[in-house]
């Protein structure tokens, strides 16, 4: 016998998933707004289809260049660009790390007094909010073309990245160890050296290697505005429509990035 209350429409009680955004008015406002924006945005994109059609032939030549890259005819230039990029990334990482350690310590609230904390956080924010390429434009204007401007740009960018992560790391340390060292009557330097440094060192090494990897990738870009490195070579190759040489450079970049990633993963595992 069926229950009298469970007849008709109430017989089948389906389950529906709860929506991603719970408040209905907010959900529909977001969907509507998103759709309206999409329509406006897509409508404002002007595409010259004739130009695209003409360009397809170039695209095809570029893909051919990728399949048969030309390493030989511009090898001297490629080698010089790579040399600049690699040396630039190494020196910039070393200098950037050296500068970002004191700033990182200063930007950690648990060991730095408030005025120093504020100054260091301001430096980090300044360094992080400007794109590498914009900094490179300014440095090229000041220091002239070449890898030195690139070195300064990458060092500057490294400071913001590393100091921020280092500061967060120091703020996250195990306080018990610092307390124990403090209980022996250690001064501020001794606490940093014996309680904090051993805790953050493995991660600092890992982050430095990661930054080296990023710096190399960035060095391929800042050359476009004249800061030396492989980017300058690549830009020239593209300007001269030498797609097979450009493809060779891109393949080299990908290979070096892959090697760096693999290597840094290995070292990080070994350090930790």
């Amino acid at each position: 016998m069926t229950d009298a209350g469970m007849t008709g429409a109430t017989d089948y009680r389906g389950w529906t998933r709860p929506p991603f955004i719970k408040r209905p008015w907010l959900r529909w406002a977001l969907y509507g707004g998103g759709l309206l924006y999409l329509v406006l945005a897509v409508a404002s994109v002007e595409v010259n289809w004739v130009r695209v059609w003409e360009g397809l032939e170039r695209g095809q030549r570029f893909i051919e260049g990728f399949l048969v890259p030309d390493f030989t005819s511009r090898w001297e230039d490629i080698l010089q660009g790579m040399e600049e990029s690699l040396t630039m990334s190494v020196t910039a990482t070393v200098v950037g790390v050296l500068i970002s350690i004191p700033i990182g310590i200063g930007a950690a609230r648990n060991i730095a007094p408030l005025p120093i904390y504020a100054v260091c956080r301001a430096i980090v924010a300044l360094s992080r909010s400007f794109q590498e390429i914009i900094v490179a434009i300014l440095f090229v204007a000041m220091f002239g073309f070449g890898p030195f401007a690139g070195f300064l740009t990458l060092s500057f960018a490294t400071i913001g990245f590393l100091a921020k992560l280092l500061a967060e790391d120091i703020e996250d340390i195990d306080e018990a160890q610092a307390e124990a060292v403090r209980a022996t009557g250690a001064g501020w330097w001794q606490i940093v050296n014996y309680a904090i440094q051993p805790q953050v060192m493995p991660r600092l090494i890992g982050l430095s290697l990661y930054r080296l990897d990023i710096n190399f990738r960035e060095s391929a870009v800042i050359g476009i505005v004249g800061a030396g490195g492989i980017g300058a070579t690549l830009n020239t190759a593209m300007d001269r429509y030498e797609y097979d040489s450009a493809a060779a450079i891109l393949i080299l970049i990908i290979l070096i990035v892959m090697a760096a990633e693999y290597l840094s993963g290995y070292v990080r595992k070994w350090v930790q």
Partner: protein
Amino acid sequence: MMTMTDLAHRTWRRRSTRKELALWLGWLLLVALFVFCWQVMTESTIWAFVTDAPRQAADIGSRMFPPRWEYIPALLEPLWDTLNIATLGTLLALFMAVPVAFMAARNTTPSTRFVRPVALLIIVASRSINSLIWALLLVAVIGPGVMAGIVAIALRSIGFVAKLLYEAIEEIDEAQVEAVAATGASKAQVMDYAVVPQILPAFAGITVFRWDINIRESTVLGLVGAGGLGLRLQESLNVLAWPQVTVIFILILITVLVSEWVSAKVRHAII
């Protein structure tokens, strides 16, 4: 045999002598590498320019101020273009990144031996080439303009989104998948009811995070001709109109700060 005085003279050391030596050797090698790289890098540096830099900086600084605020109306359209490049580029990337992520994740890939390496290769290739270089290529292929910027941003974002997403897929709770499968659900239904709900918050977070990065990157894509604010920056730099450059820098800074704030808010609401 050790006497009491011997023991008293032993002080605590963090490392054994051998380890200390190895550590010193490591540091020595690092310093040597640095000096070598420094020598190679500065070979062609003209030091006269470097020593002259403070004067140059002061000169540029004096040219940059006061900013030319009347230039702002001319920047509104490029700003709209920049936002569109970042947003549409991110959306385009999502369409391509989601299948790549599912092919790259160990637990959802159709074939670990053939499909997964291809997906991983796509991710690495996309990640190692900066969006500015993608833009350089695309401007040559499909011509200068917003379209090249959108595609450049999309191609760069695929690797980023797919990598983070496939790591999220690999970390899902298998018990839920099993529970849904036990009700007799088909493969598609398992995806829909067990896998997707688990990765949706991560997916939304990654998307907003990448959108924020893309806003930063799209502000400068115009330097190589891919539309947006960078185009005006390039024009102003070419004619050495430093007061206009200042205005553009300030606008870029504000855009970046706002997008960072929006992305932090949204991620906070989701997670």
